[in-house]
């Protein structure tokens, strides 16, 4: 559908290269799209969520007639045009009130998606004004056994992590630990996927707190962490889910060769924890070994040995006996 654009100048070429498939990918950009029936509550909820995705998010203002579960092609088009692989679509209907549809794309095609109905919503503006700098990496915690056992909740966990984790960094400034996003779901996780009864599924609680650290009297190096809620406060009910096509998911989970950890050959760690490696020295022909130039092999008088200790004596003897016999050379002893 998209025509292939040939870059006319260096700037457009850079833009194209930035969007091309890469070994190490860019941080995923997100879009918030409003459905034709999107209510004010849903709009505000999306704005609040978007605040934690800044600057990697674009918010659409216009309303669009889209039904993601029936036909997601226009969302795929938006994804391609904006180079965004995460989309939140807001809608509201009698059957599905205040619903956010979260979806991910792979190669600009829908990978997986699910619906989250907003049960409770308390806006950020209703909390005490606590802001975090744009682009700060959040700490994220997923609490509840169901996130490990139920495949739909695992999808929610994966999507939330993808959405909120932000830029990949290797060095973290400790001052950058500013807030935590806590996603919880109670329930024992023994809920069958195939029961089809979505009303039994436990709600997902989404909370964001600002972190304050206090010096602890108990331990010098570790501070006491205290939280203050900064919003938004959201409770979601999981609705319809469209799981990823297994082939597409397999493609998406592929790790490029450049990033796969390279096994170091020849190096091992022995029982004591020491790093041991084998140096491969070529075969030495002992008969042709040049010993005339090795000072250590010269026979020395007994007086010289006195201070050195017994071990040296023995080694000296062994070497001398090996080499001197076949050669039968008269050595001048200094």
């Amino acid at each position, binding site marked *: 559908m998209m025509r292939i654009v040939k870059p006319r100048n260096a700037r457009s070429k850079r833009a194209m290269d930035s969007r091309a498939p890469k070994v190490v990918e860019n941080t995923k950009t997100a879009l918030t799209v409003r459905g034709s029936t999107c209510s004010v509550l849903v709009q505000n909820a999306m704005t609040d969520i978007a605040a934690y995705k800044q600057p990697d998010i674009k918010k659409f203002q216009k309303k669009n007639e889209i039904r993601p579960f029936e036909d997601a092609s226009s969302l795929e088009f938006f994804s391609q045009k904006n180079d965004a692989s995460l989309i939140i679509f807001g809608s509201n209907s009698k059957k599905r009130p205040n619903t956010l549809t979260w979806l991910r794309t792979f190669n600009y095609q829908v990978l997986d998606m699910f619906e989250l109905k907003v049960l409770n919503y308390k806006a950020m503006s209703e909390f005490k004004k606590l802001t975090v700098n744009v682009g700060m990496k959040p700490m994220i915690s997923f609490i509840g056994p169901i996130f490990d056992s139920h495949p739909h909740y695992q999808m929610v966990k994966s999507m939330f992590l993808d959405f909120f984790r932000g830029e990949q960094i290797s060095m973290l400034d400790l001052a950058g630990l500013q807030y935590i996003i806590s996603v919880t779901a109670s329930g024992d996780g023994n809920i069958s996927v195939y029961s089809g009864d979505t009303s039994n599924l436990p709600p997902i609680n989404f909370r964001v707190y600002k972190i304050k650290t206090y010096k602890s009297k108990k331990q010098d190096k570790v501070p006491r962490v205290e939280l203050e809620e900064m919003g938004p406060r959201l409770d979601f009910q999981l609705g319809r889910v469209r799981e990823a096509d297994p082939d597409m*998911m397999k493609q998406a989970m592929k790790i490029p060769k450049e990033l796969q950890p390279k096994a170091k050959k020849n190096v091992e760690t022995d029982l004591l924890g020491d790093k041991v490696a084998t140096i491969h020295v070529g075969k030495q022909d002992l008969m042709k070994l040049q010993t005339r130039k090795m000072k250590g092999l010269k026979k020395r008088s007994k007086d010289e040995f006195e201070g050195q200790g017994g071990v040296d004596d023995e080694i000296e003897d062994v070497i001398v006996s090996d080499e001197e016999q076949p050669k039968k050379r008269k050595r001048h002893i200094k």
Partner: protein
Amino acid sequence: MSESMKIQSIGDRPVTVERAIPVTYDLGNLTMYDTNMMDSQIMSSTGEEEAKEAYLQSLARDSAQLLVNQILALPVVTGGRTGGDVNHNDGVFVKLPDPTTQLPREKPVPVPKPLTKWEKFAKQKGITPKARNTGNMVYDEAKGEWVKKWGYKGKNQEEPWLVEVDEKAESGGTAESENKGKGKNKSRK
């Protein structure tokens, strides 16, 4: 309670968290996964919003404490970030490990571009690109920084750090530099 008293009492609170099932971490993503059972009574009660929120906040606080404890255990790197970011030259940095949770990519793994006709030919013939000039800078191990090979304050102009004792000079003779340019002790015949 006054503010200072409150802060004092916070310092007394524990910094460790006990969990029945040990928690898993993905420090590359600053994430933790807690599979311990939650208190279903508090969670399912419909009327008591405050109690539920307080419970959720306490769970979140424990998670944050655990994460902070883990992060502080990571190796510390002081000094600037090696990205040339001028604004972040001081501050305590912690080296984060690679993320462990695998998330789907947004685009497929790049396919290596097919070799051009010249590249194929060069590969077959074993033609390698010419060794380009590596520029003026060279790394000086002793100093631990980059110095110029030639030019102003270049490495080729530095004085030798070890000079043999010149007997004539040591015995109080005039310095060589003093005698330069002077036509001293030259007898004309």
